[in-house]
């Protein structure tokens, strides 16, 4: 008997108050984004970890440009033999995603035949292709960044907004055009390695230790920390909250002023990133540097600086040792297969790209649209700068095109903000999955990135009898063992709560969580495979990490004492924070 989680509570034809979409306001390739209906219960849906707060009406654009356009176009183009990409349903403000399966056997075979032709071609040209795409993204970015929005009339802002959206959509075409083939190649290599008897826990190590743009940012942040420590600013950081830090440093003057100048230089290079993936509702560090200042504040709590050079050297040494050890157990014929597969994966390195691309795409592509909506809010006299992101795309176009007055939407904006808050509160208690839980899924993004592997599927099938769970299991994502106090976070805003040596427990991490890995002792995620962000960063930073635990954020409470075994993929809950009299196991 298949396990079915009913969708009834989310079946509605309305999105936010006052909006019933027509299907023609955003392009899709195979299947558009919409609300749940009862028939959706036959499919398998999982809650998307990217937006733990929920999405505003404008934020839902990502579902259109990323999933309905980007993944579906890429899956059709490669093509993926068994799947047409990812589709989604909205439950309030939250997104559930599902794979679109190809069911006809002949068609799967025909798609396989085309993939066999296209994939090697793509991989051979990867370096050049990624360089060209990066250049294209940079070119769009430079152009959009150069425009002084304050000089634009409302209609011109509409033109800018449309262009910013075009950039957004194009960026996600590129994102998935690259991601599917790279991932398919990696998973193929992974399979070849396991077939040759290589320990699966070793395989990701073969591709680690290559510097990315994201690591460059983290290094710069630590340079600033070192300077703050060196110039005796530790006390200023310790005495103030991250939100008031800039003011406090300004008031302090002297070395603090010098430091702020350097901090601003840092922001000009690395500050165009949001505290979360692809969400127009999120400010960049330029707009609000609190997260970056908060990071420096908690970094200063550590006794010593994170030694990036040593960590990278370790990662490289571990990589070379792992490769040598694996090769030595292979026959000469197998070594030829291994060497060719490894060379292919090193030239088109998925784990590396999976971190690197976030700098170019995920962390900044929504910013031009955000600037436009804020300037439009200014021009139309909205009460708050974020009022305009509570309009849906077609509504905001009506405003910039002069078809409707913004004032007509004021009541709706108020209702929609309440609606957002209501669903924000509901997030923690929402089902992790909906519909019919399958034995297995076929889309490699769902398996390797979202962690919808057999561990996860078993865990969610067993949900309900977790009352006395002491040991949880998941994917052994980064090796090592650590014990400490659990910090169960629902989004990156709360990262400043994490103290050095604590254990991060969350649905999943994304690049804006990366700096925290320099201070945490271990990481546990509900979702994520061996190639999820947490797994990759956990390995680079040497932080024991277990992913695809399924219900970690439900079973583990903030303050619990837990032990994370990243080598064997287990998490043991020793002492419950809410039951202090319980004897440690």
């Amino acid at each position, binding site marked *: 008997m298949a396990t079915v989680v009913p969708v009834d509570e989310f079946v509605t034809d309305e999105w936010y108050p006052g909006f019933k979409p027509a299907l023609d306001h955003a392009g899709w390739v195979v299947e558009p984004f919409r609300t749940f209906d009862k028939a959706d219960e036959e499919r398998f849906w999982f809650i998307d970890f990217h937006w733990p707060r929920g999405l505003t009406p404008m934020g839902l654009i990502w579902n259109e440009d990323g999933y309905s356009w980007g993944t579906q176009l890429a899956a059709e183009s490669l093509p993926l033999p068994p799947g047409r990409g990812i589709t989604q349903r909205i439950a309030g403000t939250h997104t559930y995603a599902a794979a679109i399966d190809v069911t006809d056997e002949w068609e799967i075979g025909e798609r396989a035949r085309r993939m066999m032709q296209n994939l090697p071609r793509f991989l051979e040209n990867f370096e050049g292709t990624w360089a060209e795409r990066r250049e294209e993204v940079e070119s769009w970015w430079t152009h959009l960044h150069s425009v002084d929005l304050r000089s634009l009339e409302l209609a011109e802002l509409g033109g800018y907004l449309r262009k910013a959206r075009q950039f957004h959509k194009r960026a996600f075409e590129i994102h998935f055009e690259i991601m599917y083939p790279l991932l*398919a*190649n990696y998973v*193929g290599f992974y399979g*070849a390695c396991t077939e040759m008897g290589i320990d699966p826990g070793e395989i990701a190590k073969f591709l680690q230790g290559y510097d990315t743009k994201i690591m460059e940012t983290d290094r710069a942040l630590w340079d600033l920390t070192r300077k703050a420590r060196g110039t005796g600013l530790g006390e200023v950081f310790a005495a103030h909250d991250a939100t008031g830090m800039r003011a406090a440093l300004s008031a302090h003057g002297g070395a603090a002023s010098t430091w702020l100048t350097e901090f601003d230089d840092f922001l000009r290079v690395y500050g165009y990133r949001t505290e979360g993936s692809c969400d127009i509702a999120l400010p960049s560090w330029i707009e609000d540097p609190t997260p970056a200042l908060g990071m420096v504040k908690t970094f200063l709590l550590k006794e010593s600086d994170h030694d990036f050079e040593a960590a990278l050297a370790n990662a490289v040494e571990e990589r070379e040792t792992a490769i040598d050890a694996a090769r030595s157990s292979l026959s000469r014929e197998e070594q030829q297969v291994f060497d060719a597969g490894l060379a292919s994966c090193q030239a088109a390195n998925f784990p590396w790209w999976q971190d690197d691309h976030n700098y170019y795409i995920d962390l900044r592509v929504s910013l031009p649209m955000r600037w436009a909506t804020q300037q439009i809010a200014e021009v139309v006299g909205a009460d708050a700068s974020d009022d305009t992101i509570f309009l849906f795309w077609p509504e905001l176009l009506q405003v910039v095109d002069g078809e409707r007055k913004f004032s007509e939407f004021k009541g709706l904006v108020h209702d929609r903000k309440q609606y957002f808050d209501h669903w924000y509160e509901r997030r923690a208690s929402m089902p992790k999955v909906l519909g019919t839980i399958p034995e297995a899924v076929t889309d490699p993004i769902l398996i390797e990135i979202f962690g919808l592997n057999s561990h996860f599927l078993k865990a969610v099938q067993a949900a309900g009898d977790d009352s006395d769970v002491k040991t949880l299991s998941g994917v052994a994502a980064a090796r090592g063992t650590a014990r400490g106090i659990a910090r169960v976070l629902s989004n990156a805003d709360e990262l400043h709560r994490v103290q050095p040596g604590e254990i991060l427990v969350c649905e999943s991490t994304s690049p804006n969580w990366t700096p925290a890995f320099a201070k945490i002792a271990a990481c546990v995620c509900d979702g994520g495979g061996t190639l999820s962000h947490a797994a990759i960063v956990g390995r680079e930073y040497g932080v024991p990490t277990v992913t695809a635990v399924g219900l970690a954020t439900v079973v583990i409470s903030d303050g619990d004492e837990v032990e994370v075994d990243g080598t064997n993929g287990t998490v043991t809950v020793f002492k419950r924070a809410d039951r202090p009299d319980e004897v440690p196991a």
Partner: protein
Amino acid sequence: MTLVLDLADLSPDTATAVGGAKIGRLVEMRAAGTVVPGGFVLGVEAYRTHFRASGLDEQIAGILRSLPATPTDRQLTAASEELVGAIREVAVTSELCDAVAQRYADLCERRRDEALLVAVRSSATGEDGAQSSFAGIFESYLGISGAAEVIDAARDCWASLFGPRALRYRLERGTSHQDMPMAVGVLELVHARASGVAFSVHPVSGKSDRIVVEGSWGWGEAVVQGLVTPDRGEVGKSDLRPLRYTVATKKVISDYDPASRRVTEREMPAELQETRVLDDEELQAIADTVRRVERHYGHAVDVEWVLSQDRKPGGPVHVVQSRPVTVEGNAGQPAAWNSASFALKYAFQASR
């Protein structure tokens, strides 16, 4: 003396016809440059002559005729006991006894050991063929000494042609014992430090790029009969590079027991249970030997090997038996790297 022949006098072309499958293969392997134990064989003709002249042929035919077409296990066992009893009651002619005694004395003299220990091994024709594997059905006796014991052991080997399993096997295949006359090999017993089995392909996956070696301390009977979990090593076939090695906990050893004057099984001495049996040089020497045997036959083989107690690095590996190997998988050589086919196999299947 055509009834009992020295192995050294047999030609690879006729050895199987004269001395049965097992002895035939030893002669073939020796001709191909493999080190095999020396000895002699009571040939197929010795068996035929003994059974015909003594009247055992008619007696056996009578007992088998009285068996129903599909006998019960009990009927089969009773018939087997009657057959074996009849064979053991008939004395061997003095002519054959003298011939065996002479060959045994020659062997002792060559090895400068007047009570030389030997292995007496069944070597039926038609045995160990690729199609009908009689592996383990016919008897072997290790640690025999003296001509009289050799004769007794040889007669027991003949009798094992009529054990219950052999009878059942032939009934199921509709063949007769007449089609598989039994020669008996008498081979010097290599004083084994370690012994075991090796396969020229991976016996489960069928990977043909490696040689798999299983071994334990002492003689190989405990390994062959599955009484001990042996150490297991893998060696690359093309470059003889050791690939992996697993040390097993070995609880049983086949060892020479002076009291019963046989190689028998006993508990492995504690200090040897967890000790690695083969070093890299030994693994490579065994693999090299197996590779030579496989090349000689042109098909995959398994080989029973022995490292003698006085073997030094670079010294020979003794082969006491080899057979065509039966493999479950058909992995063969690894498929060359191809991004798309590996992606198809692993990235787009629901198997993980």
